[in-house]
């Protein structure tokens, strides 16, 4: 419970703290890893040499992301009425689905909740509790995909020392979440929607290009030349909304101390590296540590880890198997 609160605090913006105490098994592992440096190094080399370079999870995720977004598009274009609407609100073969953050904005601005709005929001709430909360970001959000492609460009430029990553305080996102909620409540306008690249891209994919894409492009340029993945990391309240929903989700990434060589590749590819604090040598509180709710379950760390220390895990299910 204490570690859960700690993980939520990290999501809201606080720096990850070194755990106060360790489980006996974790302690044992930590000391074992310090004991014979040469053995440890050779094991590490071995793992490196036998690393299976894969993009399994990334490819799966891109396929799911593209298909779910294109299902909206084709549903409208071909008039097959499978998934009508856009990401903000839709109907899947008749069942209402409403994006949690958009629903929140509308509820606060309009101060009136009709039955369909409630049903759609509740459905999506349970859906994402089951599926992992922020997995919405990496598996569905179209801006995430585009930003991922532009991030590659950013990293290339960083590599060539042409640009550098300017980090912001992660607490900014929490402040944005509160401010956008307050502004909707006070002004009665769903102010965030005007800027939301998620909504803009989703609508553009379905209803055709708009001027608003210019804003999305500016955001991407900001991310390429100034700050890596700035919108998703420091601004987007959708991410925090889904992060809170995913707090109790059974789907998460599990860290396994005994397989880890503490090389930090996972942190380098991660959108939210603060959730991977336990991979630092001597930080894991237990031998198995679930990654916190801010994790988007994108699987990049799973793909990149040479020794399989990070794996997808479904609470309860893994034990049963």
């Amino acid at each position, binding site marked *: 419970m204490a570690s859960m609160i700690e993980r939520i605090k990290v999501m809201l913006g606080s720096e990850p703290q070194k755990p106060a105490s360790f489980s006996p098994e974790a302690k044992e592992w930590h000391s074992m890893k310090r004991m014979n440096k040469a053995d440890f190094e050779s094991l590490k080399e071995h793992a490196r040499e036998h690393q299976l370079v894969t993009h399994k999870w990334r490819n799966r995720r891109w396929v799911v992301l593209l298909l779910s977004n294109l299902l909206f598009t084709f549903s409208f274009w071909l008039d097959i009425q499978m998934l009508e*609407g856009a990401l903000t609100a839709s109907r899947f073969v008749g069942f209402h689905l409403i994006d949690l953050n958009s629903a929140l904005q509308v509820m606060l601005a309009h101060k009136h909740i009709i039955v369909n709005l409630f049903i759609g929001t509740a459905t999506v709430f349970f859906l994402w509790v089951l599926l992992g909360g922020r997995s919405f970001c990496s598996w569905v959000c179209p801006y995430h995909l585009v930003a991922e492609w532009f991030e590659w460009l950013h990293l290339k430029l960083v590599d060539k020392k042409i640009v550098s990553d300017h*980090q912001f305080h992660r607490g900014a996102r929490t402040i944005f979440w509160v401010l956008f909620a307050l502004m909707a409540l006070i002004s009665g306008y769903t*102010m965030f*929607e005007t800027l939301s690249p998620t909504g803009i891209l989703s609508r553009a994919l379905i209803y055709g290009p708009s001027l608003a894409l210019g804003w999305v492009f500016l955001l991407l340029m900001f991310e390429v030349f100034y700050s890596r993945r700035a919108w998703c990391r420091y601004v987007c309240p959708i991410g925090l909304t889904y992060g809170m929903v995913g707090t109790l989700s059974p789907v998460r990434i599990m860290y396994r101390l005994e397989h880890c060589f503490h090389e930090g590749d996972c942190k380098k590819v991660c959108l939210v590296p603060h959730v991977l604090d336990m991979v630092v040598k*001597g930080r894991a509180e237990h031998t198995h540590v679930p990654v916190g709710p801010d994790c988007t379950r994108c699987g990049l760390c799973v793909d990149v880890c040479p020794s399989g220390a990070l794996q997808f895990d479904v609470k309860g299910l893994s034990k049963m198997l």
Partner: protein
Amino acid sequence: MKDITDTGDGKVRPNDPPEDSDELKSPPGAQRPKVPVRKEANRRKFIRTSALACGVIGLSMAGWLPVANATKTRLRPPGALEEHDFLSSCIKCGQCVQVCPVAAIKLGDIDEGYGIGVPFIDARNQACDFSCDAVQCILACPTGALTYKKPDFTKTRSGMKLAHDPILKAKAKDAEPTLNLKERIGVARLARPEACLAVQGKGFKGQARGANFKGTMRYMSVDRWKPVPVKDHPYERDVCDLCVTECPIADAIKLEEFVGPDGSKRHRPLVLEQCVGCGVCEMICPVEPAAIIIDERKEWKA
């Protein structure tokens, strides 16, 4: 490959030092005290973050400008709440767009600020002709921004309420001939009587809006369920009365006789109280620009 290690002071030393941790890059022997450098980095990060916050919030507030500066409101789909309530309650999903059989509904762009993704109708290009019979856009709306019955707390204006449910001409012979629509979305007005063909005593022959017009309409004589392009349905009238005959609503507009300046018999369209503001008259009017137009979101004044 070097390990990432815990330096013991709560700071992690990764393989590649982050941009902010200047103290890690300082050359050996440099007498730069550790704490002030980190303080300086934190200070810069704080300023940067504040600037980001101001920028994003400022931009989101700028979305108010187009709303405040709009000289007139857009024509919203049938069943829309009053403008402010409509902007609050619309979730910008476009489900109304998807169900409209004549594709009359379009979504606002970012130049409309808070009106981004909010549906509107450009009646001259494609009016709502109620060819769906049931006001499908209202049925599709998941948030009640388009609604059959307004909740009591939302604003309304007296002239917006229709005296009785409008009778759809296409359904006139059905057991239930009315549309489930309580309020108008605007009201038609003969804005340029001098251009009106009927006022001039002229007839009309041909395609109402020319060969390039893309708009469609439901013609009961062609197909009740399939709207066809207006250009495929030419007209021939001794006195132009397209706005009256093509109006989908009963008792919303009629042709009124008057005596012209030369003493001859002339006609002009007279908008009646049952006008819902759908915009078919504006779309079908063959003169350019239209002689009869919709005053968007205007109430009825006798």
